[in-house]
């Protein structure tokens, strides 16, 4: 099939989906109290936008997720490079510990973190970063480990220094795996974002959802969920785009988010 026809099919499917979302609740086949029609959600979004709440909460949530993600990258990437590349013995020694840490559910940790950090911004950032750091670390280690040794030997025999070897050979070889970890982490960041905002605070999309639940405003819950989903998908697409630009030599980039290979010991 031609790619244009496939694209056409996809567009038709999306239009059909949106039409069903509108029609099924309207005709009463789905309880409109449970699943409000698309137009209701759009109206709700427009109202939120008109009052300025939408932009404010979205910005706050986005900044939180990105700061958490950034913190996770700035810890996980160097950690993974060091453990995978330079200190394999320490990596062996810390692997089970890291696997256990990765199992430590941030929602539960939240109760402990609150003792130390309160329920302010730092606790939220910490919760997000904690969950995101593990896929990044594990995938970096995996990426470094899976560098083709004949490439390394060839590069070394051509007289590349340690630093050059790292920049020119090791990092590009590990890049696809690192990007996979990054995409997984970005997905988790948005899951945890909502959870952490539900636990306390007074702004953000997660808070908006909880507020709407208390006033039984289901349409607004759906509006919030739509925004979060959009942010998550957009972030994933953005990373995928960067990956395609950076990792031009690997054809296996455009995999679906959930089909990304889980890294060693890494969960969720």
């Amino acid at each position: 099939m031609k790619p244009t026809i496939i694209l056409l099919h996809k567009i038709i499917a999306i239009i059909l989906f949106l039409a069903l979302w509108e029609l099924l609740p309207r005709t009463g086949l789905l309880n409109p109290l449970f699943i409000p029609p698309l137009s209701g959600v759009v109206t709700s979004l427009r109202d939120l936008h008109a009052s300025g709440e939408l932009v404010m909460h979205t910005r706050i949530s986005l900044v939180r997720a990105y700061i958490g993600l950034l913190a996770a990258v700035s810890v996980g990437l160097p950690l993974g490079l060091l453990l995978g590349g330079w200190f394999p013995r320490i990596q062996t020694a810390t692997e089970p510990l890291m696997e256990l840490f990765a199992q430590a559910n941030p929602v539960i940790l939240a109760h402990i973190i609150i003792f130390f950090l309160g329920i302010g911004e730092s606790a939220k950032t910490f919760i997000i970063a904690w969950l995101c750091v593990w896929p990044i670390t594990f995938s970096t280690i995996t990426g470094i480990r899976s560098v083709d040794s004949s490439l390394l030997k060839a590069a070394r025999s051509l007289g590349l220094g340690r630093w050059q070897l790292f920049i020119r050979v090791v990092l590009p070889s590990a890049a696809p795996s690192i990007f996979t970890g990054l995409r997984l982490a970005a997905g988790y960041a948005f899951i945890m974002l909502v959870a952490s905002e539900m636990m306390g605070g007074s702004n953000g999309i997660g808070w908006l959802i909880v507020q709407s639940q208390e006033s039984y405003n289901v349409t607004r819950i759906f509006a919030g969920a739509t925004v979060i989903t959009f942010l998550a998908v957009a972030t994933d697409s953005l990373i995928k785009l960067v990956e395609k630009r950076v990792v031009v030599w690997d054809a296996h980039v455009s995999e679906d988010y959930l089909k990304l290979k889980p890294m060693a010991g890494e969960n969720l």
Partner: protein
Amino acid sequence: MDNRWASLRHFLLRWSGVALFLVLWEIGPRLEWIDPYFVPPFSTIVVEIGRLLTENYLGIHILVSVWRALTGLLIALAVGIPLGIALGRVYPRIAEAISPILRVLSQVNPFSLLPVFVLFFGIGETAKLVVVGWVSLWPILFYTITATRDVDPVQEKSAASMGISSWDMILKVILPAALPTIFVGIRIGATITFYILIAAEMLGASAGLGYLVHNAAMNYQIPRIYAGATFIVIFGYLLNRLLLYLEKLLFAWREDTSSTITATSKGVAPSWRPGRGSVYAAGVALFIVIIFGGIEVQKVNQEAASVDPGSHSRHFGTPVDAGSGN
């Protein structure tokens, strides 16, 4: 002998990190490097876990959580595998066309849906099962679609040339060939499920491991928070290991079964192959857990309802809420 010594040394090296962490956890609070009120030493936690176990308090919560996870997973399997086969084999064009929608739906945040489920199903079992099922459905569905689509065409064609019926084709060729990949999806689904379930139980439940920790936090029983958290971490770790082990055991005939690359994953020798008997045994065990777990969950919920109706209705609160509200 040499080999055994080497593997022992590897084992010691591997777990030295955990050991060091536990030692620090023990002496840190004892020497007051950290406030022992907020971080009790590890031995206190072990005693607390022991107490929870002997009082048979932990057992109920484990059973309830395991029942919820298993039932939710079974629902996801019952929906995901037939749907995945249908989309992957029978209607590949439809699968292609709706792939963007599936991608967006799979990224729908389970926490943002939770309030809707709670509003409409109450905080009863249904809401939790729906959340658990929703979360584990996507990896199972995606892996099933991919797996059934990527069956070796040689196998398919030779089966077709021998005049296999289309029903047998799915049951005897496609499904066995796709199972290892589907199992990866099940494993991912199961681990995500456990994660989300614990969170869901903290947001509204009257039993379960997540509730145990949440309740401890509400009542400022700090050692119990750590005990519950430690237990959940160990439980999750063991669950993950068990599934990885099962994957290797069941699909040892496949070369690249596990997508994980670890220093120690040398592969389990297929010394034991599951026969029909062990499959039945596993099925019966699963059935018993589901039935008895269900009865037990009913009992627990009824007790909770009869003791203090309404007190579990809203658990979105935090320990801060607990200070002021409870």
